[in-house]
């Protein structure tokens, strides 16, 4: 039971970091990143590659995070001045192309064989879990600070109406770029931790489903609310991963059918949450102006 609990917590923490990253990009700034899994994969591969070329794992992680932030900024630059739909398709396209490169360029990524024996920054599963939880906490605190900082206010203004924000003298393009890179960095961190945890990566581990999980966490938690996202990651991922236990009980369904069912549930959850609970379960942080006792 203990190893299972450990791996569950690990999955939750990694999904939480990715969802927090998406929250900065989409929840706070309104930039749709359908290519989340591509940046996540990018970081995992950079990190794995660097540790394989005998870099220190800590250094590899930092380099991978910085590179992922830069890569997200570059990709978003293609269409960040256009409306949201374009950013969605551009990020998705970049992610799909990246995956093709990972599959086919075997001299670089070992293709479908994958990269194994990735060194960890700390030895053992439990210390790695502690590190991951600490990083989750760190990212959470950082993004809570960002949400309360002028940068966060500007981000919400841009999300709600870029024209008004621009009229008030905000440099929309630069702010979007910065916030997209910031979120991309967190997604990259999640990718590194993925590589450290499994110590083996191959292209099949990375797919659009990672993006869907992150979106579901952000929507159910409440767009823009970091606390809500922590809450929803812990409940939603727990529930979804818990359905893996069903494998032993429902013998008439094959495990691949159960996997398909689980993904259908994710999709259904996304749709239902959007229809019935679009604001999520926890409201985002708002600065209260004036007499705080009187209003609302």
């Amino acid at each position, binding site marked *: 039971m203990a190893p299972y609990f450990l791996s569950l917590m690990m999955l939750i923490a990694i999904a939480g970091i990715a969802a927090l990253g998406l929250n900065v990009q989409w929840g706070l700034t309104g930039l749709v990143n359908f290519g989340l899994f591509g940046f996540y994969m990018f970081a995992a591969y950079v990190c794995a590659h660097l540790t394989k070329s005998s870099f220190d794992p800590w250094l590899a992680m930092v380099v991978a995070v910085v590179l992922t932030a830069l890569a997200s900024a570059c990709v978003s630059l*293609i269409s960040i001045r256009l409306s949201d739909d374009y950013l969605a398709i551009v990020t998705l396209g970049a992610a799909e192309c990246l995956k093709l490169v990972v599959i086919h360029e075997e001299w670089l990524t070992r293709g479908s064989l994958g990269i194994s024996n990735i060194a960890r920054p700390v030895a053992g599963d439990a210390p790695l879990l502690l590190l991951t939880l600490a990083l989750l906490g760190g990212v959470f605190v950082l993004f809570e600070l960002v949400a309360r900082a002028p940068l966060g206010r500007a981000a919400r203004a841009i999300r709600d109406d870029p024209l008004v924000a621009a009229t008030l003298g905000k440099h929309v393009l630069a702010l979007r770029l910065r916030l997209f890179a910031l979120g991309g960095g967190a997604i990259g961190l999640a990718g590194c931790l993925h590589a450290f945890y499994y110590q083996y990566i191959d292209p099949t581990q990375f797919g659009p489903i990672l993006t869907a999980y992150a979106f579901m966490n952000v929507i159910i938690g409440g767009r823009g609310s970091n606390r809500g996202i922590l809450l929803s990651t812990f409940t939603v991922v727990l529930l979804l991963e818990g359905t893996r236990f069903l494998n032993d009980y429902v013998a008439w369904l094959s495990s691949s059918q159960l996997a398909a069912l689980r993904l259908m549930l994710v999709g259904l959850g996304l749709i239902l949450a959007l229809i019935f609970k679009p604001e999520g379960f926890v409201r985002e942080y708002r600065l209260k102006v004036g007499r705080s006792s009187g209003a609302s």
Partner: protein
Amino acid sequence: MLQILFNGLVSGLLVALPALALALSFSILRFANFALGAMLTLGAYVIYFFNVVLGWPIQFAALVGIPLGGLIAVAVDWLVYLPLRGRSGVTLLVASMGVALVMENAVRFAAGGTPLGYDVEPARPTRFPSLDVLGGLRVNHEQWLIAAVGLSSLVVVWALFSYSRLGRAMRAVADNAALAAVRGVSLNRTVAAMWFVSGALATAGGLLIGLDATLDPQMGWNYLLPVFAAAILGGIDKPMAAVFGALVMGVASELSTLVIPSHYRTVVAFGVLAALLLVRPWGVFGQARVTR
């Protein structure tokens, strides 16, 4: 050379039907429908069900399956997009991602992940000896089918769009929904009709792609990027221009296989898309608006 051009046009036709479907829904509802790939997959499998499981000839399977695909799209609209109408385009975008997940995995649940093929009689390719001076041309049986189904669907949609009352209503709503409503065009009926056409087109596209290669639950997803690139190339709010975009994309990707390995077709599509978005995001025929 002639062969490459021809193959390019045929693979362009494969993309043209879903690209047209995408541009239709974008022009009327102003949101990018990411569930289109999954709709294509689902439609292809519906026809597979009639064709292989029930053993009908492919023509009948297609005749029943294509309208059924349209009805599925209308049902999805009714269940998902109708309650969300009036919300921002981004909300619909994310919802369509959810729809895609549900559809694709419903297919995987019911049919499994192994590639399948339609029950079509194999036939010898047609050759054109008179064209040998230009490098020769051979046309597969499947390519004839693709050309016939693809072109006739395009003609039907074009006629519907240009000459029928419904087509006029669609164009009116696409142009200015509020004004159309004031003039008595029923928004809900027009949108439902649009979804029917869009779903039927996606299903027909799925049939053609299944004929060209094999059916698998990922098939539609893999075509999503070329379809978006084609629709944006033509001008995403100009439905018939998407067809032009698709043909250009088809020829371009076929030509690119001369220099780039063919598994990088998606990368070529993405390259075209990225270049286009940087230089002329409103497409070849679109007008410079609505992009910001």
